[in-house]
C-alpha cells in the first residue's frame, strides 16, 4: 500500500534532480539530531512536565505558554515536544521491522524454486489486498493498545509491500552475470543471497524504507487518534489531536499544534526520502507503474 506513495516521490525526485548532496546530508544530520533529542531527552527542549496540571486552563498561546494550555492547564508546548517520542519510536521501529521482514521474505521468495515463489507471493498478494490500517487494527485487537502494538502493527502491515518490491528486484538480479557466475561456482543460495544480492539491494531498500516513514507516521498517528496508542494523560500527537477536537470551536490551539507537528514530521520524512533517493540512486529507474 505504501508503495504508491513511495513511488510518487521517485518521479518528483527525478525532476528535482539537481539537489546538492551536501545539503541533503546536512538536513539528514539536523533531523537525526532533533529525532534523538525528541526521543531520548525531550526535557532539553521543554522545561515543563507534559502531565503537570495548572490553574491556567484553556489559555491561548502566549509568552508563558507558547502553544497555550489545555482544559487541565497542561502546557501544550511541552505536550507537543514530549508527544514526538511515541510517534517517532512507533513509526521508525515499525518501518525497520517491516524492512527487515520484507527483505527476508522478498529474498527468500526471489531465490526459491518457482512453486514456492508463487505460494509465498500469493500470500503476499492476499495481505496486500487488506488495507494497511485494517491489518493494523486487527493486530491491535489481538495484541492490545499501546506503542509496542503499534510498532508490531506497522511492521506487519508494511511487510507485504516491501516483500513485493524486493522480490521483483531479486528476480531481476538473479539473471545478472555475476549472480549466475556465483551460483555456477557452487555458491549456495543462502550465501549468494547474503553476499551478492543483499549488498546490491541495499540502496533500494534504504530508499524504500525512508520513503515509507511518512506513511508510517500517518498510520501511527491515525491509530493513536483512534485511541489505540499511548493512553492519556501521557502526551501523544494523535490522542492529543483527538482530545483537542472536542474544544475545536473555542480553543483552536489544542488540536492545531499536535496536528502541525504531525504534518511537519511527514513533510520532513518525505523530503529526506526524496533527497536520499536522488543522492543514493541518481538513476532512480523505478517506474511508478503501480504493479
Amino acid at each position, binding site marked *: *500500500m505504501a508503495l504508491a506513495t513511495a513511488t510518487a516521490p521517485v518521479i518528483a525526485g527525478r525532476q528535482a534532480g539537481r539537489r546538492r548532496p551536501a545539503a541533503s546530508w546536512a538536513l539528514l544530520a539536523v533531523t537525526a539530531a532533533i529525532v534523538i533529542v525528541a526521543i531520548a531527552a525531550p526535557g532539553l527542549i521543554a522545561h515543563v512536565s507534559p502531565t503537570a496540571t495548572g490553574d491556567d486552563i484553556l489559555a491561548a498561546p502566549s509568552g508563558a505558554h507558547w502553544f497555550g494550555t489545555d482544559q487541565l492547564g497542561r502546557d501544550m508546548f511541552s505536550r507537543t515536544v514530549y508527544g514526538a517520542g511515541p510517534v517517532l519510536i512507533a513509526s521508525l521501529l515499525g518501518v525497520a521491522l517491516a524492512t527487515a521482514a520484507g527483505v527476508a521474505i522478498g529474498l527468500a521468495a526471489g531465490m526459491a524454486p518457482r512453486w514456492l515463489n508463487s505460494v509465498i507471493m500469493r500470500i503476499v498478494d492476499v495481505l496486500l489486498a487488506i488495507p494497511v490500517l485494517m491489518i493494523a487494527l486487527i493486530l491491535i485487537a489481538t495484541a492490545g493498545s499501546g506503542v509496542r502494538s503499534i510498532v508490531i502493527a506497522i511492521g506487519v502491515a508494511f511487510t507485504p509491500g516491501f516483500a513485493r518490491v524486493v522480490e521483483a528486484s531479486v528476480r531481476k538480479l538473479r539473471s545478472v552475470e555475476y549472480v549466475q557466475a556465483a551460483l555456477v561456482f557452487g555458491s549456495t543460495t543462502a550465501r549468494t543471497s547474503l553476499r551478492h544480492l543483499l549488498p546490491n539491494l541495499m540502496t533500494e531498500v534504504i530508499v524504500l524504507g525512508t520513503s515509507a516513514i511518512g506513511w508510517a507516521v500517518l498510520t501511527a498517528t491515525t491509530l493513536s487518534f483512534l485511541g489505540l496508542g499511548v493512553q492519556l494523560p501521557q502526551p501523544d500527537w494523535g490522542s492529543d489531536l483527538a482530545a483537542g477536537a472536542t474544544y475545536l470551536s473555542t480553543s483552536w490551539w489544542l488540536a492545531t499544534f499536535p496536528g502541525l507537528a504531525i504534518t511537519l514530521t511527514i513533510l520532513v520524512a518525505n523530503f529526506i526520502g526524496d533527497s536520499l533517493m536522488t543522492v543514493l540512486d541518481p538513476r532512480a529507474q523505478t517506474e511508478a507503474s503501480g504493479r
Partner: protein
Amino acid sequence: MAAFIARRLATAVPVMLGITFVAFILIHLIPGSPARIILYGSQATPQQIATLTSRLGLNQPLWEQYARFLGQLLRGNLGTSYLTQTSVAHELLSRTPSTLILTGSAMVVAIVIGVPLGVLAGARPNSLLDRGARGISFLGVAIPYFFLALLLVLLLSVRLRWFPAIDNGTFAALVLPAVSLGWGYAAILTRLVRGRIIEEYRSEYVTSARARGCGEGRILLRHALRNSSVPAITTIGLQFGNILTGAAVTEVIFGRAGLGSYLATSITSKNIPVVQGAIVLIGLAYVLINLAIDLIVGIVDPRARVA
C-alpha cells in the same frame, strides 16, 4: 479480451480464498475464547462455556471449521453479532452504502483536482503554476486527513458556517469529509501525473507529432495524457483500500453512520463475526475494484492484455 478477463478472474480467486482464510483464522488468533467473549459478564460456568464452544463448532478440526465458514459465506451468511445477535451481513450491508459514497466522493475529489493540476504542471515544468502545484501536493501528502478535516471544520463550519460539521444527510454535509479525505490522494495523483507528462514529452512520438504539425493542446490531451492515464488509474486502484479505511476514520470525525464507527466498536469489543465480515467485504471490494481497473487498463492499453 475474453481470455484476458478469464485469466484475471483466475488470479482473483486464490486471493479471495486467502482473504476468507485470514478472516476465518482471526477467531483463533484473538486471545480469549469466543464463548467467553459472548458470555462475558454472565458468571458463566465452565460447563456453559464448553457447551457454547461446541455449539459454535470451535472444537472441530480446523479445516472442517473453514469449510463450514466458506459454505456459510457463499450463502451470504456472515454469522450473528456477539452483542446484538443480529445478522452481521445485514448490519454491514446497511452501513456500506454511506461508506462507499464517501469513498467514491473522495476518489472523485482526488481525480478532479489531481489530474488537471498534474497535467498543467507537467506541461509547463518549473513555471509558476508548476511550483505552486508542487508545493500544494507536497503539503497535501504530508497533512493527515483527520487533521485537515478538523482544520476545514474550524474554518468552513465554525467560522464561516458554509458547511455543516456533523452529517445531516445533505449533499453539503458530504463536501468536507470528501475533500479532507480526497486531498492527500489528489496530491499523490498530481505528483504522479506531472512526472508522467514530463516523461511523455521527452519521448519520440511527441516530437513526431509536433513534426506532423499537431497542435500543443492535442499533443497534451490526446497523446501525453492518454499515455499517462494507465499509471494514474492503477494508482487509484491500489489506493482504494486506503481510501476506504480512511473513509471509515473520517466518518467517525463527522458523525456519519457508516462502517467506520461500527467496525471500531466491534474491534474494541472483540465482536469477531463483524470484524470477519468486514475483512471479507473490504477484501472483496478491493479485489473487484482492481479487477475492474485491470479491465479498464486492458481497454485503454491493449498491450496490458498480453502480459
